[in-house]
């Protein structure tokens, strides 16, 4: 049956072109030999080589990955706990406030989150003397706070879509609630937790505004470094960096998609 009108089809084509032309053009220009990023000066891979010799980029990348891995792990733990509490525990005191605090970070403008967290860290430092320095720990805390909301939402939707009979059966057979969660619930929601971890990792790796607020002198994350460079305009080494990002993400997602497709077909 053909329900798609010509109009819908052309908007689809336009929409996907809109989404992908910028990405394709960046990859194209990353192989441009010319230092003027918009004038074609022949094919070259020199900007990729330069990328790996740039120590600032390497340092920033290492910091970003450390922050992303730590905050994603913390966010997955807290987010899963929050999801469990909201879906499985029924009513408890302060539930309204809790669910509000879980959803609000999803849409909160970054400038507000960033500013408010920085002011918190400054106040804490005055009162308790901690954090003495802003950097890895403060960025990690900030990222954990907003990305645990995403994990909680994913875990929540997985939990409410899930059949509860296995958990109930285990309870009926005398299994303690804590054991039920560890032995039955967690393995069942593991895919959601993995998806949540990956999303949290990506969000952390992506964040510029919040990190700019809560980081201190000397600790630049990768987005902060990129921003300081692209403020001044298009540069060829950032083209190369962007292309690497695009390729890694595309290959990972597309191969994951193919694996899932294949499994579906086999089952």
């Amino acid at each position, binding site marked *: 049956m053909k329900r798609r009108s010509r109009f819908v089809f052309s908007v689809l084509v336009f929409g996907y072109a809109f989404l992908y032309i910028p*990405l394709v053009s960046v990859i194209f220009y990353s192989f441009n030999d010319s230092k003027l990023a918009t004038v074609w000066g022949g094919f070259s891979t020199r900007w990729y080589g330069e990328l790996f010799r740039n120590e600032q980029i390497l340092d920033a990348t290492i910091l970003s990955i450390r922050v992303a891995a730590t905050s994603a792990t913390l966010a997955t733990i807290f987010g899963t706990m929050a999801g469990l509490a909201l879906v499985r525990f029924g009513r408890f005191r302060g539930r309204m406030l809790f669910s509000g605090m879980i959803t609000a970070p999803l*849409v909160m403008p970054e400038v*507000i989150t960033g*500013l408010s967290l920085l002011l918190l860290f400054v106040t804490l430092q005055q009162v308790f003397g901690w954090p003495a320095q802003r950097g890895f720990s403060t960025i990690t805390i900030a990222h954990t706070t907003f990305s645990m909301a995403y994990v*909680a939402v994913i875990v929540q939707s997985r939990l409410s879509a899930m059949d509860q009979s296995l958990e109930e059966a285990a309870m009926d057979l005398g299994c303690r609630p804590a054991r039920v969660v560890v032995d039955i619930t967690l393995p069942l929601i593991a895919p959601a937790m993995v998806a949540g971890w990956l999303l949290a990792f990506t969000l952390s790796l992506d964040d510029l505004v919040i990190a700019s607020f809560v980081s201190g002198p000397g600790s630049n994350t990768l987005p902060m470094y990129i921003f300081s460079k692209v403020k001044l*305009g298009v540069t060829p080494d950032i083209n190369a960096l962007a292309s690497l990002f695009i390729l890694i993400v595309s290959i990972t997602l597309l191969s994951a998609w193919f694996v899932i497709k294949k499994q579906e077909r086999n089952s």
Partner: protein
Amino acid sequence: MTTPIKEDRLWQRITVATPYLWLLVFFLLPFAIILRISLADPIIAQPPYSQTISFDNFLFLLSDKMYALTYLKSVLMAAAATVLCLLLGFPMAYGIACSNQATRSLLLLLVVLPFWISFLLRVYAWMGLLNNYGVINNVLIWLGLTDQPIQIMYTDTAIFIGLTYTYLPFMILPLYATLERMDLDLIDAAMDLGASRTTAFWDITWPLARAGVIAGCLLVFIPAMGEYVIPYLLGGPETLLIGRVLFDEFFVNRDWPLASAVAVVLLALLVVPIVFLQKSQAGDAEQAS
């Protein structure tokens, strides 16, 4: 030795309390502090605000025309970007929902994929397309449509393109979720009974998709209001939007109290849509269960 029942309750309490405490300290408490500092005066000290309480910052924000205009412009630009996302996103979501199973999952993947690539780098990609010697102008000149490069970069148009591009997936996904649940045979039935495509759309598709439209619009509008990077990189230096004003007030002028007041007013403007979003999602969750 604790009894099993007590142990269960303790365990439940820990599961709730850990994320709860974290959010109280790192999400709610910061807002209390921002509110407090917005009532202080800037002083030259470390940290640069006084312990006094006054409403001077808010009075200043209300009396200064520049700030009022900035807020207004931010609301209008976010609203325009929301409309653009809806105009492009609705037919796309509809088209995806109408495709067969195999194409559908690939099309969805292609909508989500850019979202996983650094946001900053995607905005950066547009800088290369839009500038005077960029791809778009080169193509236009090559086609003979213009002989002078058209100024797109550093204009409001560039900001609209950037906002639409970045937030389009946030519009498509909730729309797709509602359209996918819809029974598409209803449209065929209406058209078999003589309804035109337009009538069928306004009488059937639109009302059924309303929940998705509301969620999508709010997911685009709220974060777009405080956007900093897109106006900074793509817009002109005279395009003042509230996210940038807050950033500069804090980092350039080092006026922490005024920056806090700007944030408080922005938050006050967003409270209504945020509560609305929470309500619509709570309703959605109930409907699903």
